[in-house]
């Protein structure tokens, strides 16, 4: 089986950058701040493959670059350098023709596309759920309206059909369709997160990016959101990129896991191996720090 998504050497610098930035930062240097020019090296040379129907975890403390990685993959933040390729099979035909040579199973480097094309790719197959529902939702627009907005972006035009779709998505994420005309600001944190998931699923994405989706929720609410994600993943055979600092979440959802520190991947492997036989000093500390 071939990867759905291939990321190669993703790098993101905040600052003007210099020739020393990558050498002077990282887990060995214990900093992501270049001592010479003051640039923040948020992410450096990070590569990964994501397979169809696979759940890949990215774990690390805040500031390790895991969210940066996801934002670059979602084309929200422009990468300083790096490459991102998608399997042609998952793209609609017209996009596949535009973005890939006929005999190449992968697209060209998506990071060099125009922002219009990147938006097309995103609308065609990506969904994103943020830790902070304010980033993923318009709080003052009705929940149904939030979903309709994404459907419009994906080319839907019929209002009745959009309402039906929104109602069925909300039902899937355990929100009563009777409340679809209420804005998310009226909802609890767990409900907001579920509306966000419904919105992210509205374009039938193959690839769902989850950035600390359960952080800050009550334990029982957290469990419900995680169970929902698990069942949706199975039902729709989604590929998931799960960013979390919580090893419990990673253990529950992910088959493979990458560990990040100071913008670098320090270790990657099977999730049970990462948790029971961690190799890197930092991973050992992380595992030993579990409650």
């Amino acid at each position: 089986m071939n990867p759905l998504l291939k990321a190669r050497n993703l790098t993101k610098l905040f600052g003007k950058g210099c020739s020393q930035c990558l050498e002077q930062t990282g887990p060995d240097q214990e900093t992501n701040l270049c001592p010479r020019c003051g640039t923040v090296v948020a992410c450096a040379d990070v590569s990964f493959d994501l397979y169809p129907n696979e759940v890949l975890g990215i774990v690390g403390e805040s500031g390790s670059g895991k969210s940066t990685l996801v934002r670059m993959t979602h084309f929200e933040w422009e990468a300083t350098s790096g490459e991102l390729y998608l399997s042609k099979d998952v793209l609609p035909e017209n996009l596949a023709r535009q973005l890939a040579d006929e005999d190449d199973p992968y697209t060209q480097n998506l990071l060099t596309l125009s922002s219009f094309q990147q938006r097309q790719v995103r609308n065609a197959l990506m969904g994103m759920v943020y830790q902070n529902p304010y980033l993923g939702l318009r709080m003052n627009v009705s929940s149904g309206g939030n979903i309709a907005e994404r459907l419009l972006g994906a080319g839907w035009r019929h209002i009745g059909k959009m309402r039906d779709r929104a109602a069925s998505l909300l039902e899937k994420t355990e929100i009563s369709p009777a409340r679809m005309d209420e804005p998310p600001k009226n909802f609890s944190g767990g409900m907001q997160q579920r509306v966000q998931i419904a919105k992210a699923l509205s374009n039938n994405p193959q690839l769902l990016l989850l950035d600390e989706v359960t952080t800050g929720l009550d334990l029982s609410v957290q469990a419900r959101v995680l169970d929902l994600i698990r069942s949706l993943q199975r039902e729709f055979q989604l590929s998931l990129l799960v960013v979390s600092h919580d090893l419990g979440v990673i253990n529950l959802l992910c088959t493979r896991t990458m560990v990040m520190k100071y913008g670098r991947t320090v270790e990657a492997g099977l999730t049970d191996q990462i948790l029971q036989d961690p190799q890197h000093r930092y991973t050992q500390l992380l595992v030993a720090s579990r409650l």
Partner: protein
Amino acid sequence: MLTVERLSKNFDVHILGDKRIAGCRQISFEVNEGEFVALSGPSGAGKSTILKCLYRTYLPTEGKVRYQNQEGKEVDLARADERTVIDLRHREIGYVSQFLEVVPRVPALEVVMEPMLSRNGTNPEEAREQAEELLRSLMIPESLWDAYPATFSGGEQQRINIARALGWQPRLLLLDEPTASLDRDSVAIVLNLLKELRQRGTTMVGIFHDKNVMRATADRVISVGTARKESHV
């Protein structure tokens, strides 16, 4: 089917000042297809470490684990890439430990059905029937079938664990003290189930703390080294 060659595992614990703990050292043995092999040795000799290296929950430090897969192709489990290991775990190799490790908030019956559905592609009704039969033969009361195993007693959890591991009839099954927390009657039932599984062709490598159980089930016993040694690198 399985050839272990000079397998060693050290744990380098960086957060304890690079302390090196020896898990197992220079282990070699062979397992033929259809055989039931038991690993025996004192506590701390590294028996569980060996099983976890075979399943790749532990990354072996040195040596080879040559496994002949269903298609007759050889894979070195010690070095195979993660996708290959995931694939083998999904299709051929099962592991059952003395502790129940399942997804929380899933009813017992579904815990047992899940591998049959996802790995064998059994249809849901058939999987349900087989799972019910297994739970019945393992004396799990019907009233518990739709409850969450996390709330069960130790012995019940262990039997759910075994039902889950046996139900999908893996080609190779690794057993780490599967009968450790069971009473005598349950042990007899489990051993019977293992016997049935073997008759259907599953090869097994197991650890049993009870010498009588071990002798009653295994074709062959392999002795594993002496107690654990520690050093600093």
